[in-house]
């Protein structure tokens, strides 16, 4: 039977054909045949390939092989085996989502490429933040790829498994008598309900304490006293004709800068019906203070008197105030009286008493109902520091709960007595941290159960009473992390841990969504938010006066203010290299915190007031609350005399914690600077222990002692010269009064040159009529990309700078390189202080007595102008003519384009650039050891954030702003696909995309209907350094300040009067 089976390999064998017969004994049929055929080919002998040719071929082959061997290593691109739906390689996909990190909230759009999130910007179409973001929000995308983020659960510092961790934690919860959950303010209804589930499963007591490092409880308490409900109302700066801010940096860090910056920007347009008048009373010059029309240098101890003075004057009571503040306070009162209910007074100091005074003033002017909305309260910042401080005290005294959970909270770092708390925490039986890093609090805990990164998880938020927002994941979890929402439910024993495929959070959020009656869920996800129909409960609030609570008391001597920097904030982002390298908008210092002091006082006390790459600043000790820290002293003009300021958020992770590669000081040739225990040294010092803490309030100021000590500290600043030296062709400033009643020639005169006309007589003509060169053929042909930047609207927030860094793969170079003046930012924000020689920034008081050496020194309380500066894309670009190899050339769309491949690195172009916007690759940033710790591009994971549309530049080539040419190209392609011309507004550069005040307008200048064209032809438009004739494609617009400036109006208006008659004589 076995014999009947026949196995065959093919139909030929089955049929036993002739061909099969012939070939069956030949093992390698084709090869044999071909070789034999080849050798048997007679024509070979007749071939013309002689010995010489053979040698030639041989030589060529050897050379070719050698050359091929020298090729750079091939990096393989792995194609999709199964193409995911909606992912087109090379095409970006945008998702609407929401950002909330405990202190900032914004509706965002996230750009993903091949499923990698690479860029974040504000969502202009939906949400309550109208497209506004802050630098930390834009930079948060880098945090996703932070290789030091916890990658799996840990138990006692060792890797563990979710199953182990889960069972141990839920057992601990089941048997515990007292459980405490410490979190920052949770505004997620779904998370709150999962916390409720956890609470109900706990056997003993369960406390949930919300504690934020930066507290606004003063506002809540004051409203509790005045309106009967602890709340933070909604503020609307866009309706405020008079804004009085006492120590509130509302454009950058206070409360909801993502809302306020845009609202404020709307009121700062001198061409609209009205322009707000902004008064700022503060000690440390803040971003907001730098934009104020009037700024009073105010000590923390004087804040009360300012508020009381304004209040008393408004209600007609006699009042007095210190001489230095009287003028500004009086002006503020006058302005408040004029604008009445269209006014807004805010105070940034966290103190119930002061906030009550603010409420009194706002009530007196009638701001409630117009600029302040009590019926749409803010759910952020519900910090209960009273409860937290009680817990800490009791724990330090020995009464510790059985289980402590930390969710998005790092009190060991941010508490005034964090160290003692960490010690007490070690005695807790079960402590769990859900934080993303092994931070100060996490390392003191038994378990680390890392939450997802925000871009990996579903989330929901209710930032205000009337708004509900959703966050959706852009990417599958990179690490073995678990959503906190899920963890709470799992630990309550209600659900099972599933892992990466878990849909628990999604289901839960969907459930919440249907509970709140939000409507179509998919639409809500698409828009990232829904507005809620106002709640049915009709509360009515009415003002009732209450006796003013205790205000902060300062002892005699120096007062210190703990402020937040735009980039680092309260320290959440201390490990983000983009943010560390972001120059502070006012001091322009990177990678450090320092004591700020007025240079006038510093000179008297013998501190160094100038600094550069080799000459550092003096050191001083600052003592408060019995804690002494040594920090460099930075000369900050405008700092209230008798006060110092130090930024919060620094000094993180210096005790062996792992909070991120870029969070530490690095050495000149790479590697960390370590302390005596071998731990990398943190950047700056933590000053949370120095703030004032009363029974239930944290106030971010205190009395302090400051003593100069020996030694010098080199600081890395991107700007070491602070005034514009009266150069009117760079910065132009005027007042609202001059602007309204005078023509262009007074505040924005053209630069005139003498020439000889046809009759042979001397005449003056504007410089724009002179031209040494043939015009580039870009006018009225095709596109010509242009930009206008309104110095009136620009608030110096620095969003553009981070967005540019993110969009264009700008390398991070670290403190040592920044100090050497080698930061790589394509876009910078020049910050100019007025000097005592100037009537306004860029206008000399007196041309004849003008002193250059005096003009180098900023005034005591100077006016400030922020001037974003990037490649001006000159039509007669001086860089283009000097490049020996034509690596930088002009495109036929008016762009000055840089061809990296062609660049040989002579740096001649950078030298010849009048705007100094070109950046040279001094080292191989993506590989050189100096940058290993700080440049994310040196990290396999960090590299994922790079924009694949933009080349990563190599060592030795020049780079600069390209006007986001990759975006121009894609906009053009989109239009081409649709078969329509590029519509105005379709193209946005990264910087213009994230500008909260729309100060930057870009577009096709050849399109006469375009916004940029119209904007560039307005009366306020001028080109920086017009007289050198480089014909930029960027226009600036004169800064208009809503102030009275007699001297300036004399200079600008009279000059015109003087100029015209003399002109006629010719």
């Amino acid at each position: 039977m076995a014999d009947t089976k026949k196995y065959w390999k093919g139909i030929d064998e089955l049929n036993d054909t002739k061909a099969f017969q012939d070939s069956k004994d030949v093992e390698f049929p084709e090869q044999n045949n071909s070789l034999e055929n080849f050798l048997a080919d007679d024509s070979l002998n007749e071939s013309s390939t002689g010995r010489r040719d053979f040698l030639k071929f041989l030589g060529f082959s050897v050379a070719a092989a050698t050359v091929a061997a020298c090729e750079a290593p091939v990096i393989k691109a792995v194609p999709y085996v199964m193409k995911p739906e909606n992912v087109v390689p090379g095409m970006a996909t945008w998702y609407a989502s929401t950002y909330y990190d405990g202190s900032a909230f914004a509706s965002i759009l996230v750009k993903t490429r091949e499923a990698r999130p690479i860029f974040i910007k504000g969502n202009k179409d939906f949400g309550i933040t109208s497209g506004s973001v802050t630098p930390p929000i834009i930079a948060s995308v880098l945090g996703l790829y932070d290789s030091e983020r916890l990658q799996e659960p840990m138990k006692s510092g060792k890797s563990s498994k979710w199953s182990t961790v889960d069972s141990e934690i839920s057992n601990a919860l089941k048997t515990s008598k007292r459980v405490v959950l410490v979190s920052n303010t949770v505004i997620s209804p779904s998370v709150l309900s999962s916390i409720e589930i956890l609470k109900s499963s706990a056997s003993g007591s369960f406390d949930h304490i919300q504690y934020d490092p930066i507290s606004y409880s003063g506002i809540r308490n004051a409203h509790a006293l005045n309106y009967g409900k602890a709340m933070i109302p909604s503020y609307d700066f866009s309706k405020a004709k008079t804004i009085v801010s006492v120590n509130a940096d509302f454009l950058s860090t206070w409360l909801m800068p993502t809302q306020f910056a845009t609202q404020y920007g709307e009121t700062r347009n001198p061409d609209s019906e009205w322009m707000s008048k902004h008064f700022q009373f503060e000690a440390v010059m803040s971003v907001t203070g730098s934009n104020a029309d009037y700024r009073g240098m105010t000590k923390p101890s004087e804040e009360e008197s300012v508020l009381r003075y304004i209040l008393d004057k408004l209600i007609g009571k006699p009042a007095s105030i210190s001489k230095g503040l009287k003028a500004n306070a009086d002006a503020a009162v006058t302005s408040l009286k004029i604008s009445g209910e269209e006014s807004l007074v805010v105070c940034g100091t966290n103190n119930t008493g002061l906030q009550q005074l603010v409420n009194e003033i706002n009530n007196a002017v009638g701001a409630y109902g117009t600029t302040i909305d009590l019926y749409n309260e803010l759910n952020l910042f519900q910090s209960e520091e009273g409860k937290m401080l009680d817990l800490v005290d009791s724990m330090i005294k020995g009464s510790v709960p059985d289980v402590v959970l930390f969710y998005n909270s790092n009190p060991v770092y941010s508490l005034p007595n964090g160290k003692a708390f960490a010690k007490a925490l070690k005695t807790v039986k079960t402590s769990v941290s859900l934080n993303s890093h092994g931070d100060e609090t996490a390392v003191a805990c038994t378990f680390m159960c890392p939450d997802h990164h925000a871009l990996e998880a579903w989330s929901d938020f209710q930032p205000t009473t009337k708004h509900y927002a959703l966050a959706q994941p852009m990417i599958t979890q990179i690490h073995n992390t678990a959503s906190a929402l899920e963890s709470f439910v799992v630990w309550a024993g209600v659900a099972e841990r599933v892992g990466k495929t878990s849909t628990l959070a999604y289901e839960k959020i969907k459930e919440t969504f249907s509970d709140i009656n939000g409507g179509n869920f998919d639409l809500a996800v698409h828009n990232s938010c829904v507005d809620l129909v106002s709640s049915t409960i009709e509360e009515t609030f009415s003002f009732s006066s209450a006796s003013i609570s205790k205000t902060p008391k300062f002892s005699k001597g120096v007062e210190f203010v703990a402020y937040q920097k735009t980039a680092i904030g309260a320290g959440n982002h201390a490990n983000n290299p983009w943010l560390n390298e972001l120059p502070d908008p006012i001091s322009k210092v990177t990678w450090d915190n320092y004591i700020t002091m007025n240079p006038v006082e510093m000179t008297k006390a013998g501190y160094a007031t100038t600094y550069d790459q080799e000459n550092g600043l003096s050191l001083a000790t600052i003592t408060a609350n019995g804690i002494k820290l040594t920090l460099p002293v930075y000369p900050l003009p405008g700092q209230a005399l008798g006060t110092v300021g130090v930024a919060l958020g620094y000094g993180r992770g210096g005790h062996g914690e792992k909070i991120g590669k870029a969070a530490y000081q690095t050495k000149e040739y790479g590697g960390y600077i370590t302390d005596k225990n071998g731990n990398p040294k943190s950047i700056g010092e933590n000053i949370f222990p120095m703030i004032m803490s009363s029974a239930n309030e944290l106030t971010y100021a205190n009395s302090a002692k400051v003593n100069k000590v020996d030694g010098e500290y080199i600081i890395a600043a991107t700007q070491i010269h602070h005034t514009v030296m009266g150069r009117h062709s760079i910065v132009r400033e005027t007042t609202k009064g001059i602007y309204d009643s005078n023509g262009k020639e007074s505040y924005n005169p053209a630069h005139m040159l003498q020439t000889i006309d046809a009759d042979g007589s001397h005449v003056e003509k504007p410089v724009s009529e002179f031209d040494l060169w043939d015009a580039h053929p870009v006018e009225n042909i095709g596109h010509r990309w242009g930009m206008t930047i309104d110095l009136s609207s620009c608030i110096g927030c620095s969003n553009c700078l981070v967005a540019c860094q993110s969009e264009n793969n700008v390398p991070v170079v670290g403190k040592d390189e920044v100090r050497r003046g080698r930061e790589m930012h394509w876009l910078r924000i020049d910050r100019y202080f007025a000097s005592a020689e100037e009537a306004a920034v860029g206008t000399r008081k007196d041309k004849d007595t003008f002193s250059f050496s005096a003009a180098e020194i900023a005034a005591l309380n100077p006016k400030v102008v922020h001037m974003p500066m990037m490649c001006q894309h000159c039509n007669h670009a001086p860089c283009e003519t000097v490049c020996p190899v034509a690596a930088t050339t002009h495109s036929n769309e008016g762009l000055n384009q840089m061809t990296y491949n062609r660049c040989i690195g002579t740096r001649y172009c950078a030298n010849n650039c009048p705007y100094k916007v070109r950046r040279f690759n001094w080292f191989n940033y993506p590989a050189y050891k100096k940058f290993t710790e700080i440049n994310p591009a040196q990290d396999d994971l960090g590299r994922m954030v790079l924009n694949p549309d933009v080349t990563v530049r190599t060592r030795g080539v020049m780079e600069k702003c390209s006007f986001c040419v990759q975006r121009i190209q894609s906009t053009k392609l989109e239009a081409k696909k649709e078969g329509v011309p590029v519509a105005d507004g379709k193209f946005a550069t990264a910087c213009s995309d994230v500008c909260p005040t729309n100060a930057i307008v870009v577009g096709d200048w050849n399109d006469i209907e375009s916004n940029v064209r119209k904007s560039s032809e307005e009366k306020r438009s001028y080109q920086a350094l017009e007289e050198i004739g480089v014909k930029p494609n960027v226009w600036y617009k004169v800064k208009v300040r809503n102030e009275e400036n007699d001297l300036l109006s004399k200079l600008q208006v009279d000059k015109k009067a003087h100029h015209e008659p003399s002109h006629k004589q010719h």
Partner: protein
Amino acid sequence: MQKEAAIREPLILGHKSYHDITEDVCRPIEDKAPKMWYILFGIALVVGLYGIGCILYLLGTGVGVWGLNKTIGWAWDITNFVWWVGIGHAGTLISAVLLLFRQKWRMAINRSAEAMTIFAVFMAGLFPLIHMGRLWVGYWVMPIPNQFGSLWVNFNSPLLWDVFAISTYLSVSVVFWYIGLIPDFATIRDRARKPISKKMYSILAFGWSGRAKHWNRFELVSLVLAGLATPLVFSVHSIVSFDFATSVIPGWHTTIFPPYFVAGAVFSGFAMVQTLLLIMRKAMNLEAYIHTKHVEYMNIVIMVTGSIVGTAYITELFISWYSGVEYEAYAFINRATGPYWWAYAAMMTCNVVSPQLMWFRKLRRSLLFTFFISIVVNIGMWFERYVIIMTSLHRDYLPSSWSMHYPSPIDIGVYIGTIGLFFVFFLLFARFFPVLALNEIKSILKGSGQSYKESPDYYKNH
């Protein structure tokens, strides 16, 4: 033979015969080198190798090892480049221009001045190469056919003109120098006893036989080359100055630069010749050929060119004020009174004040004083370039970008290294090459020699 007035100081001292000249010039080549030569050579070699080490580190790591920054893209690198090119100016001036003007005293100094020129231009040429971010693609500055989409160079760029100017200058200088060396090599060849050196020198001598035909051609070629080289004297440094003059940076953008740079170059070139020759005449017993009169002549050139340079400085200052251009005016106020005032003061003192001392006959004939001043002048000229390049850049248009420049150890290492390398070359030259154009010197012996001056019939009797 030319007759020369007896009251003119003789150019060759002592009662030299033709043979004496040959002996004097060839002895150092044929004898064993003195100990001092080895010591100097050793020092120069160590310094030079250190410089090469610095350059290798620079090439391996990136231009960031220098002290440059976003505002100051050139500092020591291009300062050194211009300084060396300037020094390299005297050679051609002496060999070409003075030849055309039939200045006999040039014959004592032209050989070493030309050698100095060539080595200085080597050093100068190094800097534009190593200052490039990507040296390995530096050949793209050459207009050569290529396959990068047939990319061509940018003929608008003064940096490209530099490439042509420097390479032309170097090649003409080398040819000129070598042509002059041929008869002298032949003399050494004829005297050489050792087979190796005989072989070497006969290769170098190019089969020179001393026939009248050869001499005739030699003279003709010298004249033609002198004619070719003369424009180069003016073009090289003019073109170098275009790097700055055609830019838009206040302090660079100046039409006075070409003549001012040329005068400065001659000024520093002669100073360097002085420095070298004053040592060499002593070390190699050439006091009879290079003596006070030669030094005095050169000092006069230094004085004249120094005065031109001084005038240029003052003109610049005046124009910056007179132009009424805010930025231009500030650039010069800043030079004189800004943070780099000391560099400006050093430049003014060394270049404007010190050459004026040469008005005193006693001083300009003092060898010690001349040596001192020659060094002062070269320090001053280094500062001049530093002041022009660096102080213009460090505070230009936008005060936000104003910066300071501090040299890194590598900056200093590379600079010192090139001085070392220069001396390595020069010492090798002094050891193996005839440092005096001995055959040319012989041609003036009977007209300008001391013996002739004392009794015009001297050579008839000897």
